[in-house]
């Protein structure tokens, strides 16, 4: 019995098994095992995917495999994935996925290969499975199956203009109440500035809204029913929509990251609640480099429970070479590659990498980066990956949250009407099997 088989059979606890399995064949891990094979990777052309692919040649050199990349913007990527998977095609071996959005649905449909065994038994010594964020690994586990490996950690954070806050005599907001008071003061102090901007586009709202809901202490569901009409649910709906209605830009109901970042980057918004991934876009041109502060979203009654999610990289259940595909996945999420990606501004899902001296040096080079990493540290320790309802039809649940928020921003309904309608639709969605 060789070492690998021993590791596979021994019923050891997870971490121990990793240690044994890894050490046992540290010396003989054969990166060239699948030499000559071609792995097809359906990638998202977001910063995470792009940063990873800058090292494509290294992977090919290390393994002797060919990596065929098919990159799309998120929506088109999903469209292609749905087609490929519905056709049960083996064309795609590896794909990027958002477990917090589609994880449960894809898992239920059987689209993910189970990585649990391979991640323990087929990993190089230096892989360090236990070093990955346990919260993110958990977020990618459905019915005991590990469906994807985390590539990064991200979440919405507050970008604010230190100079405008100073000019208007406002402190950095510590609570949601402070935030609203600050917005009010800024509005009175400089009418040319948009005091606060965040997501208003229907399918995009849940990302930022969830953070506020959790900070306030609300939950999406209680006793198997939708819970938006609970006092805390209504409070969140009311506050979120009021902030955008009173202090947001005109047309905020169509705002997602593109518009939000353009507005803030252009110096026309004082506070922006947007993804940590947008740092690079916001700093483009350097104008915001010296006057921007970053922080997790201000606390509510339940303190700070920031939204922390990550892109995952998964092996298709229809892949005909899951093991070769796994080689790419483990290379892509290895400490070495994640460190190199971190130096390109991709927040690493490994605490150890976040403490790496080289990465620290990069962080310390700009005050903005320091605050960015500090905010991400809060996300990593306190974060919740719940964006929208924790149900199979999560993507659709986000529609109803967004609809309720939009109805309120546009003053088309009262809070009671909006939450009741959303609850009704969401209860039907929850009941759907």
């Amino acid at each position, binding site marked *: 019995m060789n070492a690998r088989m021993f590791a596979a059979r021994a019923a050891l606890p997870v971490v121990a098994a990793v240690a044994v399995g890894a050490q046992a064949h540290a010396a003989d891990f054969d990166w060239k095992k699948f030499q000559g094979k071609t792995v097809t990777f359906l990638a998202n052309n977001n910063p995470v995917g792009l940063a990873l692919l800058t090292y494509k040649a290294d992977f090919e050199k290390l393994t002797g495999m060919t990596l065929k990349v098919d990159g*799309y913007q998120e929506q088109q990527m999903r469209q292609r994935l749905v*087609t490929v998977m519905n056709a049960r095609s083996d064309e795609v071996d590896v794909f990027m996925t958002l477990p917090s959005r589609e994880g449960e649905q894809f898992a239920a449909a059987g689209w993910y290969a189970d990585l649990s065994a391979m991640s323990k038994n087929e990993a190089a010594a230096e892989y360090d499975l236990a070093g990955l964020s346990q919260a993110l690994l958990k977020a990618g586990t459905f019915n005991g199956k590990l469906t994807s490996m985390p590539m990064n950690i991200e979440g919405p954070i507050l970008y604010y203009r230190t100079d405008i806050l100073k000019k208007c005599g406002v402190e950095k907001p510590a609570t949601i109440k402070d935030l609203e008071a600050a917005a009010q003061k800024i509005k009175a102090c400089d009418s040319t500035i948009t005091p606060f901007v965040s997501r208003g586009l229907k399918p995009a709202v849940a990302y930022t809204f969830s953070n506020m809901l959790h900070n306030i202490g609300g939950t999406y569901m209680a006793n198997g029913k939708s819970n938006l009409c609970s006092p805390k649910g209504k409070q969140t709906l009311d506050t979120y929509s009021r902030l955008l209605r009173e202090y947001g830009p005109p047309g905020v109901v169509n705002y997602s990251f593109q518009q939000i970042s353009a507005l803030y980057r252009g110096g026309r918004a004082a506070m922006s609640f947007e993804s940590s991934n947008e740092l690079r876009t916001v700093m483009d041109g350097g104008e915001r480099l010296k006057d921007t502060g970053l922080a997790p979203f201000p606390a509510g009654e339940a303190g700070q429970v920031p939204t922390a999610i990550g892109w995952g990289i998964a092996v298709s259940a229809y892949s005909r070479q899951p093991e070769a595909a796994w080689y790419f996945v483990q290379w892509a999420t290895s400490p070495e590659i994640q460190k190199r990606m971190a130096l390109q501004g991709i927040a690493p899902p490994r605490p150890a990498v976040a403490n790496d001296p080289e990465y620290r040096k990069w962080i310390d080079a700009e005050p903005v980066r320091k605050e960015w990493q500090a905010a991400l540290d809060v996300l990593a320790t306190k974060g919740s990956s719940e964006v929208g309802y924790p149900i199979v039809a999560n993507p659709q649940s986000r529609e109803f949250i967004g609809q309720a928020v939009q109805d309120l921003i546009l003053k088309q309904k009262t809070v009671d009407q909006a939450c009741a309608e959303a609850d009704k639709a969401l209860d039907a969605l929850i009941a759907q099997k």
Partner: protein
Amino acid sequence: MTDAPTTDRWIRYLNLLQLALAGIIILAPTVWMVLSSLKPSFEVTAYPPTLVFTPTLENYVQLMKTTPFASYAVNSLIVTIGSTSLGLLFGIPAAFAVSWTRVSWPAILTLAARMAPGTLFLLPWYVMFRQVGMIGSYTALILSHAVITLPIVIWVLLPSFDGIPRSVYEAAQVDGCSVTRILWRIALPLVGSGIAVAAILAFVFSWNYFLFALVLSNGDSKTLIAAAFNFIGEGSTQWGALMAAATLIALPPLILAALVQRWLVSGLTLGAVKG
């Protein structure tokens, strides 16, 4: 009486005015797009919009550096030329036959494909082309785009063929010409401008179509228009590069339009009235 000439002159001025108005509305957005592509990337969304700026080619350079723009363009050209040729190859004889026999169902059948939403075809075609191992091949894309070009060719050419007097065919028949020979030797030369228009329109519509390429192509055969979405992703939105890409993508159809505008009017003329 000097009344009539004055009225005429006023009418002419009024017409010029209307022409200028229409021209501004039609051209301004495109001009603005081209100007935007020459601005530094973050200045595209600057407010108030800058009119005076130092033009730069940085967006175009960026585009060429970060994307395999040229190879996407080649893909687009292959698919577009392929599907246009296929559309002409099948469409010319069909239009001729329909015009001759006055049996119009083949023409209507080809149009039926245009009545269904494009998304309806995505999954079935993927399954279909998957079966024969053609996903990612130019062939799959050319065939799918020919579904767009074929009805254009037929419907533009129908009236052109209709415009040929019957007597011409009859004379040829008396001389013992077969139908096929009549098409190639007699009818075809008479509908030259119609074919030019059909080819141009087929080219434009095929070039501009993005939906099929999203699922039928892959990394290697992706068309330009399908790749255009890549500039608006989270964390990587580059308005400048987007506008530069938009300008370059729109260029081939616009150049074609300029080259053949005279035929376009006369060719469509026939199409519209008799069709």
